[in-house]
């Protein structure tokens, strides 16, 4: 093995080199070079980066000038795209939330608006539906992911495609479909639901159902690639060491996909909080009667109460951003550890 590349590695990864040193004194033969290959990859991986960045800085105007311009243009393009599509419109909602309307404005007016009991009801309903949806999708998403990755069975590809369906079909269509299937007077369960006097459509279970439907793929699409990447060897090793199926899942599989699951849950939560189209169809949508947060925004906006609409919209944005920020803070620490 190249001793030279290892010694350059010492400059980029000093801790590995130093802590390995006593091992070489300890045991004569096998330690000596078993240590090196493990140290080499990070060194060879990180060393080439430095000269190339140095080159770019030094000869920026010359040979690498073209690449430099392209890079700046690309950055501008992406930043501009995101700004005009996302940042600017959303920030206008925030500004409008605190803008004076009929001489009242600012934070106090915002607080007054959101302390409207109808707000409490709407956000309560939205959170209830979202938590149910996220809970159900976490459990079933995990199950479906394991099924898709770890087992091969006829129809596996079909199932995989079917899982994506809720993302591709318009939520309004989902709403219509659920009305047809779960109304009290029709569908397979119609007579049973009617005899039990249990209403799914036009009540909370219907809203939960619609929200769950549209956020179904998010957990699965996060977990599946991670499951594929970790492979089955660790699980097989656990089995050969005496672990049963449940122990293997809890001690080996779950810790490995933990962050994918968390990320999937947060994405589902954001999606569930913002669901509008499907809920619009399956809910009564009236104040204190099936009006979720998004429906409240639409209703208030339609009733010329724009200030309340913006206040509710701001709250929705705030919750979604908080969730994403929390995960973004958690994520790098995970990559750092592994």
């Amino acid at each position, binding site marked *: 093995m190249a001793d030279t590349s290892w010694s350059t590695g010492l400059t980029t990864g000093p801790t590995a080199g130093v802590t390995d040193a006593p091992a070489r004194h300890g045991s004569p033969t*096998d330690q000596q070079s078993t240590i090196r290959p493990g140290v080499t990859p990070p060194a060879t991986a990180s060393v080439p980066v430095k000269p190339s960045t140095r080159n770019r800085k030094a000869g920026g105007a010359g040979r690498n000038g073209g690449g430099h311009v392209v890079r700046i243009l690309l950055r501008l393009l992406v930043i501009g795209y995101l700004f005009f599509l996302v940042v600017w419109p959303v920030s206008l909602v925030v500004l409008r939330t605190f803008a004076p309307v009929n001489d009242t404005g600012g934070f106090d007016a915002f607080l007054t608006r959101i302390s409207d009991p109808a707000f409490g009801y709407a956000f309560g309903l939205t959170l209830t539906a979202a938590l149910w949806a996220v809970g159900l999708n976490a459990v079933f998403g995990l199950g479906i992911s394991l099924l898709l990755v770890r087992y091969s069975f006829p129809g596996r590809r079909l199932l995989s495609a079917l899982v994506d369906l809720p993302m591709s079909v318009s939520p309004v269509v989902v709403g219509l479909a659920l009305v047809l299937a779960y109304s009290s007077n029709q569908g397979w369960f119609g007579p049973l639901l009617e005899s039990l006097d249990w209403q799914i459509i036009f009540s909370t279970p219907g809203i939960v159902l619609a929200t769950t439907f549209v956020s179904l793929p998010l957990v699965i699409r996060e977990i599946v690639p991670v499951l594929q990447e970790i492979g089955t060897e660790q699980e097989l090793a656990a089995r*050969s060491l005496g672990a049963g199926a449940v122990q293997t899942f809890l001690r080996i599989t779950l810790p490995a996909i933990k962050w994918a699951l968390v990320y999937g849950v947060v994405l589902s939560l954001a999606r569930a909080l913002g669901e509008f189209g499907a809920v619009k169809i399956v809910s009564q949508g009236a104040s204190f009667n099936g009006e979720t947060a998004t429906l409240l925004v639409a209703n208030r906006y339609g009733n010329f109460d724009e200030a309340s609409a913006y206040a509710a919209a701001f709250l929705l944005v705030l919750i979604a951003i908080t969730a994403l920020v929390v995960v973004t803070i958690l994520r790098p620490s995970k990559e750092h550890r592994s």
Partner: protein
Amino acid sequence: MSITVSQVNKNFGDFVALQDINLDIPTGQLTALLGPSGGGKSTLLRIIAGLENADSGSITISGREATHLPAQKRNVGFVFQHYAAFKHMTVAKNIAFGLEIRKLPKARIKEKVDSLLELVHLTQFAGRLPAQLSGGQRQRMALARALAIEPSVLLLDEPFGALDAKVRKELRDWLRRLHDEVHVTTLFVTHDQEEALEVADNIVVINQGRVEQVGTPDELYDQPANDFVLGFLGPVTEFQGRLVRPHDLEIFRIETPGSVAGRIVRSTRVGFEVRLEVQLQATPEAPPVNVVVTRGEARSLGLTVGGTVFLGLQPALV
């Protein structure tokens, strides 16, 4: 016998992975399953471990019928080519895994883990994560983890296959010494004949789903059952219609009884040995015969490209 395999068959679709395998693996020895890639040796190992099921046949481990036992009940230590380290656990936790599953008292687990860490020279790495170890260190951790459960047999699937040549050689010597210390019945898969010849007490040569020969390294090398075993265990060359080892040919500068004339067409020096290609005069169309001599022999006989030489079989082989 520690492991008895009888009448085992395994197909993957149309592909015959194993055909009528019958094997007895002796207790306390280090046995190599040797063969080319895709020959079925890894499949056999996985069937013994319970990670794969045979289509037919039976497996007995330490006298216990194991054919239908799930992997976790076989008490078999398994080491994977790519380590299969539990990435989210420290080295010590990895080694403790099987013991924690068996619900041993904490003090006892710590004691065992400490002694295993010492055995595999990883004591100062106990608190590291597998990602912070080199390949060789990870594989030693995996070995300690497998040994922790005091397995009735230890199975290693190409254990050094993912390591570079130098580390591989060192770990191989280390495994031999470890086995002399621990004495657990060990079965390891390799496609490297040098590794098998150097480390194993016994070798099972497997090719195309069949057992070609079973024996000690010496038996296999000196009395190969067929041309495949002969060819797989070391270099061969065709001399007068039969396959022989290049170092079993004698080379002379003058004609002797039973020798045939040829011309040196190529000479390659590799360390202490010199590899010669000799074109026989009688068969100018046939591929040249390979002969290996020591550097000293080559020098004293003045063997150079273009020179005429006479080849004969060593008397013991005639």
